[in-house]
């Protein structure tokens, strides 16, 4: 009987049907989705930290306003995604508090790029341009996800990402048009971020979990396909603004139709994500703990205020 149920579910997936939160789904499907969306939600929130560091230091008022808007968007995306994760986690008896506790206890990972330092304004530019650019590629690749609540939220997120894309380009164009020291600052930022951005898409090997996600039509592209799409889009533009990509092995292999590049240090970056040992991991988690635990009394007081009002 459970086998028949699973088979009927897979038939729905193969017909291209979308799954809703209240539909029956195999535990495996639920857990894979939850892991993906939980990490996505938490990465949106942790992704706001490197950028928020630049809000007080932004070079102009306009830059400050747009950066604040972006930070607000990232937190907003986190909220939308958390709702999707919560509905998946509810049958497992887990709620938002627990999903956020997981950041502090290290039970949920967040993207490698958000463990890094952003020491100069050019880093803020590279984050907006290339880190967001990479994230946009992975997110648009999920728009056809078989899980409808996730796909709907991604549609809204991608619409806002189009602003992020322009915002990042605007910052790096200003620096590229600027004085030699500004172009140098931009080049140094690119040197710092390149390997991390390549790692962002994940290892080229198709893991068992990735294969299952493709069977379930949660995702349809491999890590390597997405990295290749990123390189095709961004390498010519990076070169066009006069920047040098810090990888002498990078070239397009016409015959294979593939970019060849020096592989990032998979093991070192995996440890950064798994063990939260990047240069900024602990500092940002501490900020998250402060928001989550030290402000908990506010959340409780709000509910108490409502109860009191009803009485």
């Amino acid at each position: 009987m459970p086998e028949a149920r699973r088979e009927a579910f897979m038939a729905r997936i193969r017909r291209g049907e979308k799954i809703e939160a209240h539909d029956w789904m195999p535990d495996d499907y639920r857990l894979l989705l939850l892991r993906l969306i939980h990490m996505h939600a938490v990465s949106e929130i942790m992704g706001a930290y490197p950028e928020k560091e630049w809000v007080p230091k932004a070079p102009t008022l306009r830059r400050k306003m747009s950066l604040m808007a972006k930070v607000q968007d990232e937190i907003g995306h986190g909220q939308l995604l958390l709702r999707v994760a919560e509905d998946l986690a509810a049958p497992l008896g887990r709620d938002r508090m627990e999903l956020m506790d997981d950041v502090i206890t290290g039970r949920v990972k967040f993207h490698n790029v958000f463990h890094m330092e952003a020491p100069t304004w050019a880093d803020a530019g590279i984050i907006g341009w290339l880190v967001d650019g990479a994230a946009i590629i992975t997110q648009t690749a999920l728009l056809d996800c078989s899980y409808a609540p996730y796909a709907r939220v991604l549609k809204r997120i991608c619409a806002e990402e189009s602003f992020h894309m322009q915002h990042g380009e605007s910052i790096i164009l200003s620096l590229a048009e600027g004085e030699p020291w500004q172009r140098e600052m931009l080049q140094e930022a690119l040197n710092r971020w390149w390997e991390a951005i390549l790692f962002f898409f994940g290892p080229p090997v198709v893991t068992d979990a990735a294969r299952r996600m493709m069977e379930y039509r949660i995702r349809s592209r491999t890590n390597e396909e997405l990295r290749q799409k990123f390189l095709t889009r961004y390498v010519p533009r990076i070169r066009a603004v006069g920047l040098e990509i810090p990888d002498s092995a990078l070239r397009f292999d016409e015959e294979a139709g593939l970019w060849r590049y020096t592989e990032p240090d998979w093991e070192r970056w995996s440890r950064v994500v798994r063990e939260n040992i990047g240069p900024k991991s602990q500092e940002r988690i501490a900020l998250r703990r402060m928001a989550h635990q030290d402000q908990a009394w506010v959340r409780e007081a709000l509910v108490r205020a409502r109860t009191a009002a009803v009485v």
Partner: protein
Amino acid sequence: MAMTQVEKDQVYERARHTSYDVYEIFVQASDLDPHVHVGSLLAPSPEWALQLARENFLRRADAINIWAVRRSDVHATPDDPDWFAREFDRKYRDVSGYADNARRWKRFKAQAMNIDDVIADVRKE
């Protein structure tokens, strides 16, 4: 006065079990638009749901009204395609059921009407 760590832990322990309700959010973009469902959020009260809805869903888009409805108050149809089944052809209810009018009017050397033309005509000064 700053709280001690013990006090902080006590507050956190109590607050951890605080649960917010899920509110479904509907946004009305203009007087001539209906409220449209845009998503859901967690909030401690209906008033907060409306505030958070503005933050979450209206950072750019314009709107004139928001509804926040506690999810438990939403009544939905069963998850059964038969509920929406069409027992027979309903083309007779649609414009497409009268596609032959245009051809038949030709015989009388006149044209079929459509509602957009009528609206445009009535609006014209």
